[in-house]
């Protein structure tokens, strides 16, 4: 990668902050879904009954609006914890933008007698918010359950009367994420890429580190934990404060 002389490169901290704000916009969609769902579940509980799939239909106008409004979001919804709903064992109230721009529901076979993919509780986007109680970024990973796309899924736990009720989540296809952050990475004076806490490359302006590959060596989870810029064998590691991604700058 080259930069033209005289071009003032934005400081790395600014790039990390802008990556963060791109994903914070997606987390806004997750937070709205979470708030809508929590309010809905509380309202149904106030009527002295358990929620059913038909109640979740009330979430749809909000979900559709978020798909239209948020450029990066290609799928959004609420994924119920198994046993939450009175009429089905498991459920995804999940809506996606189709290739022609249409908005459609995801209809999965969730019967374990028929589908080998009926149990979704092992996926990071479900397990991380359930186990930590905090919002999470899963991926990049191949989402063969919902979209068949290489994706990031941002999610947050939904609680009802203090108990875990499921997750609110939004999908970002990696190609859209790349389109959004690549101009930022390319503006840096040295080859740059973004990795998740496990070192998997989420976006890259460095041909030596392609999306989906692993950057081995540094303990990126520890870098995120310490939340400050570090140097590892000449690589600068810049955590995107508040988002579990690290900006890696080459020499």
């Amino acid at each position: 990668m080259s930069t033209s002389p005289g071009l003032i490169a934005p400081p790395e901290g600014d790039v990390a902050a802008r990556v963060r704000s791109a994903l914070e916009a997606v987390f806004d969609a997750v937070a709205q879904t979470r708030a809508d769902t929590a309010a809905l579940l509380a309202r149904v509980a106030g009527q002295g009954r358990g929620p059913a799939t038909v109640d979740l239909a009330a979430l749809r106008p909000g979900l559709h609006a978020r798909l239209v409004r948020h450029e990066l979001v290609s799928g959004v919804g609420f994924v119920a914890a198994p046993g939450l709903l009175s009429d089905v064992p498991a459920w995804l109230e999940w809506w996606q933008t189709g290739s022609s721009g249409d908005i459609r529901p995801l209809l999965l076979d969730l019967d374990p007698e028929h589908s080998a993919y009926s149990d979704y509780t092992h996926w990071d986007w479900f397990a991380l918010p359930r186990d930590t109680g905090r919002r999470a970024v899963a991926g990049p990973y191949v989402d063969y359950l919902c979209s068949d796309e290489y994706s990031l899924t941002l999610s947050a736990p939904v609680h009802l009367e203090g108990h875990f009720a499921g997750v609110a989540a939004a999908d970002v296809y990696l190609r859209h994420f790349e389109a959004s952050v690549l101009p930022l990475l390319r503006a840096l004076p040295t080859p740059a890429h973004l990795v998740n806490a496990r070192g998997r490359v989420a976006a890259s302006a460095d041909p030596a580190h392609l999306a989906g590959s692993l950057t081995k060596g540094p303990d990126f989870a520890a870098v995120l934990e310490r939340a400050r810029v570090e140097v590892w064998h000449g690589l600068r590691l810049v955590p995107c404060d508040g988002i579990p991604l690290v900006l890696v700058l080459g020499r």
Partner: protein
Amino acid sequence: MKHNRGGGARRAVFSPVDTRARVETVVRRLGDAIELGLLADGEQLPGESELAAQLGVSTVTLREALMALRQQGLVTTRRGRGGGSFVSLPEEPAEERVRQRLAGWSTEELRDLGDHWAAVSGAAARLAAQRTEPDDLQPLRRTLEEFTAAQDAAARSRVYGRFHVELAAAAQSARLTREQVALQTEVGALLCLVLGDDAYREEVADRHRSVISAVQDGAHDSAGELAEGCVRESTARLIALRLAL
């Protein structure tokens, strides 16, 4: 370049490649789904236009496919109010019906299916070995455990397929994963026939275990060879069974 919008030759280029093959594809897809239990006995299929849209075929093609499925006794159609197309399983034992489906494949087609499957799973295993860290192997380990515990052949076949889909996902390749999912809809229905055998089930479990170990060790060449070997053995068993029919 000379523009010839809407010209006859141009229209021909973009017309469906082979309508007959499409009918067969739809028949095989829906037939396999019924054999695998993905569609239950008595279940109503979506309306014709919706189903056609979901499968990406014209309603004419879909109607022809439904007619073929009715002839095979896998679908019944009721007219009038509350009517539509319903899944109906014939009385004869499931295994016999799957044998009949296997008889619909030539050994050359089975060999080619196996080649395609080995190419996809082998490439996936090689890439996964380069791109995997320990947490990525959890789904494969869980699937292996589920496979060793699965009782009936249909369940074993579904979980066998999931192992190969997860291997492609561990390769971080959406294309290989999509390809593997599509392959499994074809091969899954047939694999029931060889996975009922407990000894072979054990062998497959051992083979999958060694694929996981090689992927974990980053030994990409041996991971690829092990995955290919596993797939080839399954295909060879299907072909041997086909020749014995």
